[in-house]
């Protein structure tokens, strides 16, 4: 007690005041939340995923609620890198918190190009690479499920980036440690996991898939046990920092991920339910540490005994 616990963490060179970030696609470009919560209290903001060109996104309906979960098929709608830099980064640059851009592409080369552009963009502190997008060349199967493609994208990003590169893993794989190892070996500075789990809902009255895109991604508390397992497995497999994501609603949830081996966490769906979730978690982490006499959050990382 007495002292305030130390919450600072280092994610492959990106230094954060605390380990709590917002997940891509769930916090807009930051500005949307600025009147609802004190975003400067967050460790970092991860912006909505951006591509080289703007994308209109999928036909509606795009979201639906499931048991303790949210199913979405937004289709990576975004304003494109140009408008991102012109319209969104100025606000982000003024924030008192770190900013991570999240990128996506149809081809491996897109990722390199995006990294190069963002590396010269004042106001962006790191790049998170979303590899869960359908791979146009390989017939729509996601990039993120094939370790070789993951390595290839990671290499391209590293070659083109002056900023720390975080590879965001897809959970839709048989063995998460294969893609994790591939990214780590190819030079990733950190990994974030998990993205949404592919899922579906059907409207029995209309006899139609609920989502316009038929299939979507599941997020929220429902997936937390799966995400936690993947973080734990990945922590045994690689030595680079991990960012735990999936169903985090409370400080206790965040601590579960840190104990499983994560250096930091991201809050996604919970932002929609309570825009102050991230702030509350930062506060809750300190409380937990005070109660347990933990001086430094880094002592908790991977600290489960079996």
């Amino acid at each position, binding site marked *: 007690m007495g002292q305030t616990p130390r919450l600072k963490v280092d994610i492959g060179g990106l230094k954060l005041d605390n380990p709590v970030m917002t997940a891509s*696609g*769930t*916090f*807009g470009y930051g500005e*949307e*939340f600025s*009147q*609802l*919560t004190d975003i400067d209290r967050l460790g970092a903001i991860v912006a*909505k995923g951006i591509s080289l060109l703007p994308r*209109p*996104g*999928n*036909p*509606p*309906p*795009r*979201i*639906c*609620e499931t*048991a*303790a*979960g*949210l199913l*979405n098929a*937004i289709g990576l*709608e975004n304003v494109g890198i140009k408008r991102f830099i012109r319209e969104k980064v100025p606000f982000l640059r003024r924030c008192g918190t770190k900013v991570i851009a999240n990128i996506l592409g149809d081809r491996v080369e897109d990722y390199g190009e995006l990294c190069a552009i963002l590396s010269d963009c004042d106001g962006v502190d790191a790049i998170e690479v979303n590899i869960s997008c359908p791979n146009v060349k390989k017939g729509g199967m996601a990039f993120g499920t094939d370790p070789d493609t993951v390595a290839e994208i990671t290499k391209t990003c590293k070659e083109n980036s002056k900023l720390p590169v975080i590879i965001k893993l897809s959970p839709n794989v048989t063995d998460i440690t294969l893609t994790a190892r591939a990214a780590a070996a190819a030079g990733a500075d950190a990994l974030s996991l998990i993205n949404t789990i592919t899922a579906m809902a059907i409207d029995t009255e209309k006899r139609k898939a609920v989502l*316009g895109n038929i299939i979507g991604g599941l997020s*929220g*508390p429902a997936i937390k046990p799966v995400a936690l397992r993947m973080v734990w497995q990945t922590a045994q497999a690689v030595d680079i920092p991990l960012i735990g994501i999936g169903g985090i*609603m409370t400080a206790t949830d965040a601590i579960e991920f840190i104990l499983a081996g994560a250096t930091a966490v991201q809050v996604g*769906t919970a*932002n*929609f*339910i*309570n*825009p*102050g979730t991230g702030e509350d978690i930062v506060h809750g982490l300190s409380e937990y540490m005070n109660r347990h006499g933990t001086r430094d959050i880094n002592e908790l990382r991977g600290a489960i005994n079996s």
Partner: protein
Amino acid sequence: MLENARVKNIVSLGAELFRIGLHSPRIAKISRPAHFVMVRTSPGISPLLCRPFSIYQSNTDGTLEILFRRLGPGTTNISRLRPRDEVQLTGPLGTPFDLGRREEYILIAGGVGIAPIFMAAKHLQRHKRRNLTVIAGAATAAEIHPLIQDFKDIDIICDITTVDGSAGHKGLVTDLITPATTKHDMGHTGIICCGPTPMMAAVAARAADLGIECQVSLETMMACGISACLGCAVAIRGSEKYFHVCKDGPVFRADEIEWDRLRD
């Protein structure tokens, strides 16, 4: 803004309809017709997401009222709230009706879609634009009566329709548009509409035929209400792009919407 509001009162109106008063002075103060709030209906995970509701009334004492129909888990939870319970609100959200564009208005409501219509009617009445027609429709007499009570109290007479003919005109709200036009100077009249999507599509089509401007307040599934999730998309007419109902709407000009691609 985010406000933890205390329940002041909650009244069951019959036919699964309820009216709840919430002490939420900061949101109430700046609310306008067709603004909405996101209500967190459970402190836990069931249901997980907040639910959007139009603001029905905002009073000078800081009370915000919502008129809602009990449908599923979210509205069931709200219906169980009791005075002094606390509930998380985010609002006021969205772009309200633009009521300054015309001298006269025909207001058209379907079911509980009457909520923003009532606030619009009060606003127009307060601004002395008294040539108002209100057309309100529902399935049965039992459903329509609780919805028009508050109009009576402010001396606005509604033209009502029911599907089964148990009250007012037997049929749909669109049946009463042509009769209403005879009472209005159509060059200076606009339509304001809120209700089920098929009804709004029909009204939009009639308005287009008549060449009158029509504003609709749309409903879609919403996760965030603040243009962060991009879940509330509706197709823009003649474009491959989408509006986001929570930010660009919920109010749209009817002719901006690609009605055929809006699933009910």
